[in-house]
C-alpha cells in the first residue's frame, strides 16, 4: 500500500546568462531560482496494482520515484509505503522494493552479470533456496541464460536492460519502480520486457509503478494512469476512461471493389479514390460494427482497418488541455 499526501519538493537551481562576463559575475554572486518539482502530490496505490505514471520531461516523475524509493526527502507532506516512511526507515524500506532506473546501471561494469547477482543476493541477504528459485525464474522469463556469464561491458543495451530488471527482482520485492525501463530498446526487447512485467505482476502480485514516455508501454501494461505536469497531479484514472473522454472519432480505412461509397449523415467519406477510401465516424452516433455493416451493404470490402485515437495522441491532447 502506497500513500502520498500533499508531497512538496522545491529545488534550487543555479542560473546565469550566457557569456564570459556573466560567468565571472556568477563567481561572486550566484543567482538561484526555485523550481517547484512537486506541488501537493497525493495519490494511493493498492497492493498488486500496476500504475503508469506519465507526464512530459521535467514534470516531476523521477522526483516522485526518488521520494518513494527513499533516496530523497520531500520538503513537506506525508508518504507511507507499507507502513514505513521511505526516507526515515530507508534500510528497512528498500529491502522491500526493487528499482530500475532505465538510464542508469546497477550492474558492475567489469565483471560477469552473475557476479553482480551474487553480490545483490548477499546485500539483500536472500536465502539460498529463494535466490535459486528467483534466479531460475528470472533467467527463464527474461531469456538471459546465455548472457549471465558475460561481462556487462560487452552486453547490448537490450540484454543489459533485461539483466537490470532481473537484478531488481532477485530479492522478491513487493513493489517495483520502473523508471523508463524501455528507453532505447528495440521492438523485440521492448515486447519481452513488457511481457515479463505483466507476468510478475500477475503471478507474484508485485505492485508495479512505471514511468515512461512510450505510450505503447502504458497501453500494453497499465490499467490505471496518473498524469503529472509541472509538479501537480492532473489526472488519475483508468486508461479506458481517459480514452472514452477523447475517443469520439474513429477512422475506417477501406479497400473495396465496386461503386463509390455513398456518404450519409453518420458516415463521412473524407477520401475516396475508387477502390480505396477513408471514412470518419463518431462512435457515439454509430457503432463501428454498424458502420462496417452499412459500408459492406454498398460495396464488397477487401480490407479494412479501424483506428481510434492512439494513446500518443491522447496524451498530447491532455498535455494541451492542461497546458503543460
Amino acid at each position: 500500500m502506497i500513500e502520498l499526501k500533499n508531497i512538496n519538493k522545491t529545488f534550487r537551481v543555479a542560473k546565469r546568462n550566457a557569456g564570459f562576463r556573466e560567468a565571472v559575475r556568477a563567481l561572486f554572486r550566484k543567482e538561484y531560482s526555485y523550481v517547484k518539482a512537486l506541488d501537493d502530490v497525493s495519490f494511493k496505490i493498492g497492493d498488486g496494482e500496476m500504475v503508469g505514471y506519465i507526464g512530459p520531461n521535467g514534470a516531476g516523475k523521477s522526483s516522485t520515484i526518488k521520494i518513494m524509493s527513499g533516496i530523497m526527502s520531500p520538503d513537506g507532506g506525508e508518504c507511507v509505503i507499507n507502513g514505513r516512511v521511505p526516507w526515515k526507515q530507508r534500510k528497512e524500506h528498500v529491502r522491500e522494493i526493487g528499482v530500475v532506473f532505465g538510464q542508469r546501471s546497477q550492474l558492475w561494469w567489469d565483471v560477469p552479470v552473475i557476479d553482480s547477482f551474487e553480490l545483490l543476493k548477499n546485500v539483500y541477504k536472500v536465502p539460498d533456496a529463494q535466490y535459486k528459485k528467483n534466479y531460475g525464474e528470472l533467467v527463464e522469463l527474461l531469456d538471459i541464460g546465455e548472457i549471465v556469464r558475460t561481462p556487462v561491458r560487452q552486453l547490448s543495451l537490450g540484454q543489459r536492460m533485461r539483466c537490470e530488471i532481473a537484478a531488481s527482482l532477485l530479492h522478491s520485492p513487493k513493489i517495483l519502480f520502473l523508471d523508463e525501463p524501455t528507453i532505447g530498446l528495440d521492438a523485440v526487447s521492448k515486447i519481452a520486457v513488457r511481457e515479463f512485467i505483466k507476468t510478475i505482476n500477475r503471478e507474484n502480485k508485485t505492485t508495479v509503478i512505471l514511468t515512461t514516455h512510450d505510450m505503447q508501454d502504458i497501453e500494453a501494461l497499465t490499467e490505471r494512469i496518473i498524469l503529472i505536469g509541472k509538479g501537480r497531479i492532473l489526472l488519475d484514472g483508468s486508461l479506458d476512461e481517459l480514452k472514452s473522454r477523447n475517443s469520439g472519432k474513429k477512422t475506417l480505412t477501406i479497400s473495396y471493389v465496386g461503386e463509390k461509397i455513398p456518404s450519409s449523415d453518420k458516415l463521412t467519406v473524407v477520401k475516396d479514390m475508387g477502390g480505396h477510401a477513408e471514412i470518419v465516424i463518431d462512435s457515439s452516433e454509430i457503432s463501428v460494427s454498424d458502420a462496417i455493416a452499412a459500408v459492406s451493404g454498398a460495396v464488397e470490402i477487401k480490407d479494412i482497418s479501424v483506428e481510434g485515437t492512439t494513446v500518443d495522441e491522447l496524451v498530447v491532447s491532455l498535455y494541451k488541455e492542461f497546458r503543460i
Partner: protein
Amino acid sequence: MKQYLSFFRIRFVGGLQYRAAALAGIVTQFAWGFLSVLMYKAFYESNPDAFPMEFSQLSTYIWLQQAFLALFMPWLFEQDIFDSIVSGNVAYELCRPCDIYNMWFARNAAIRLSNTVLRCMPILLVAAFLPAPFKMTLPAGWLNAALFIVSMVLGFLVQVSISLVIYISAFYTVSAQGIKMLSITLTEFLSGAVIPIPFFPEAVQKVFNVLPFASVQNTPFLIYVGYTGGVQAGIAIALQVAWLIVLFAAGRLLVRRAMKKVVVQGG
C-alpha cells in the same frame, strides 16, 4: 558484515583482472625505487652525517614504499564512485539496504589490497636480493616485526578513511576534482611519501608527526627499519588508532549529513 565482504570481493576480483596494469605498475615502481635509492646515495656520499638514518635503512624504507604503494597511496580512488555522485547513479546505491559508508570503505580497501597483492611480491623479492647497502633488509627485530604488522594494518585503514572523506565531499561540491587534487598533493607530502618525515627539519617534523597523514605509511615503515621502536612506537601506534577513530567518525557524520540534504542529480 557479509554484505560488505561481498562488495570487497567483487572489487578485489575486479582488480585482479588488470594484469597488464599491474605489470606496468611493477616496472614503474622498480624504476622509481632505483632512482630514489641512487639519488639518496649521492646525497649520502657528499655528507653522510647530515642524515637521520643509515643508508641501508633508507633503502629498505624506499623498497617498502614501492612494494606497498597501492596500500597507502592517496590517489587510489574508485573513479566510479565520484562519477556516480556527479551523474546521479548513486541513486542505485542508496536503494540498497546497507550502509553507504561501510560499502565504500570495503570497496576502497579492496582495490588497494588487490593492487598490492599483484604488485608487492616481485618487488619485495628482487629488492631482497640486491647488493648490500641498496637492498631491503629484514625488520629491525622480532618486536619491530610484530609492531610493523599491527601498524601497517592501522595505516592502511587510516588511508582508506581519508579516501572516504574525499569521496563523501563530492556530495557537497558536485565535482570532487578540486578537493581530490588538493588532498592528493597534501597527503603525499605530509605522509612522507615524497621525502620521509625524519628528513624534515625538527620543528616541521613535530607538526607533521601529529597530523593524521603521518599515521599512514610513515609509522609502519619507520618501525620496520628500526628508526622508531619501544615506547615511541607504542605512542605512534596509539596515535594511529586515535586518528582512525576520528576519521571514521568524521566520515560517517558527513555521510549522514549528506543523506539528509542529498539531491540525486539527473532525471
